[in-house]
């Protein structure tokens, strides 16, 4: 994996460990929308006794895991267009209703990947802005604008070693001031009125190591 050439396995959390760490912070009973990629791993690590209800913006609340081989329906899919199932208590609805749930603040938490997050909570995760790239935004702008809390889960740095947590995003924005917390392989960091505030270091990582890989000032843990 290319990430591992930058962040050796011995340093910081794996993707699964990041997802597991994040899963601990989701209150029982939350309505949750998970982006494609690392965010989807969160479902594997929901603490025992907790029930989350998953929303997929293409029109299903109460989304369950992938179907058994041969038991799926090509028209029962998630936002990543992969086959899923519907749990007991599920509901299907159309897109305007689905995005009413999002825009109207009814979804408690959304977990997304990121290309960049600024210290002001701006998110860039839909376009490199490069000429020739096909722009595609999907529901990301609606999600960050409407969901009560938006968490980002991402490698701390790009494949090339550049910080993803930055003073100001250089990629086109998905939303302004929309992110509340970031979970990376190296740390858990809140977006505060003062900027990036360290909440927790990953095992085996120290403050300077994370600050060196962060593109803006990292404020220390309060009451460590």
């Amino acid at each position, binding site marked *: 994996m290319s990430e591992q050439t930058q962040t050796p396995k011995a340093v910081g959390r794996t993707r699964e460990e990041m997802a597991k760490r994040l899963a601990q912070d989701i209150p029982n009973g939350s309505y949750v929308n998970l982006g494609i990629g690392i965010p989807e791993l969160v479902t594997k690590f929901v603490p025992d006794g907790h029930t989350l209800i998953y929303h997929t913006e293409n029109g299903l609340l*109460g989304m369950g895991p992938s179907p058994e081989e041969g038991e799926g329906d090509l028209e029962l899919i998630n936002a990543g267009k992969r086959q899923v199932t519907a749990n007991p208590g599920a509901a299907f*609805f159309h897109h305007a209703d689905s995005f009413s749930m999002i*825009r109207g603040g009814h979804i408690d938490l959304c977990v997304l990947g990121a290309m960049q997050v600024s210290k002001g909570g701006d998110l860039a995760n839909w376009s490199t802005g490069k000429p020739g790239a096909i722009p595609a935004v999907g529901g990301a702008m609606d999600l960050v604008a409407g969901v009560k809390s938006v968490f980002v889960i991402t490698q701390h740095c790009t494949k090339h070693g550049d910080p993803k947590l930055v003073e100001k995003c250089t990629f086109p924005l998905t939303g302004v001031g929309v992110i509340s917390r970031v979970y990376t392989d190296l740390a858990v960091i809140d977006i505060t009125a003062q900027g990036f505030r360290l909440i927790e270091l990953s095992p085996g990582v120290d403050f300077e190591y994370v600050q060196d890989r962060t593109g803006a000032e990292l404020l220390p843990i309060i009451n460590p």
Partner: protein
Amino acid sequence: MINKQISSASQAVKDVFDGATIMIGGFGEAGSPIELIHALIDQGAKDLTVASNNTGSGEVGLAALLKAERVSKIICSFPRTANSTVFPDLYNNGKIELELVPQGTLAERIRAGGAGIPAFFTPAAVGTPLAEGKETRSFNGQDYLMEHGLVADFAFIKGRTGDTHGNIVYNKTARNFGPIMAMAAKVAIVQVNEVVEPGEIDPEVVVTPGIFVNRVVEVASPVFESELVAAGVSYP
């Protein structure tokens, strides 16, 4: 495990506070959550703002809540109801404020509130007294009024069947304002004839998905406004 079932109507409404805004479902008596309203009368909250299509009839349900002088303002499309003297008396005596809203604008404002739309444009009421003080704007040569989304602290709704996740189906034209009021309220409280387990309502036929519902109360045999009025009942 998620279980939104509450044991009684009185438990379900116990945290309604003085000054709260409450959307109350129903068109006439169809879909009127009369047991929740009676529980609220018992509970005592006052200085309420109520959004509802009508003002109730006789001296039961919504009319009884008005008669108890718990409502300082009503947002309503048709407050002139058969068999009701309660609202006219309060209104003519200056004891209640009325915000009169065309029925479709009321519905769309509630839907917008629930959908995170702060404002929208509608052709209804342009050039009428109900347009006074409202911004008018032209699109494609036609005039429209800007109307604002409406939200509430609570919604009281009547459904037919609900599951413990809050998924709701309704009975015929009792559906009316229920689904949109559930969307627009911080706390949506639904009384249903029957509470069932998750999975017992086909996900294809759910009308109000559980995400919009906070509390479900079973009222197995709800009373009807017209029957109470015919029997001469006055609540409490």
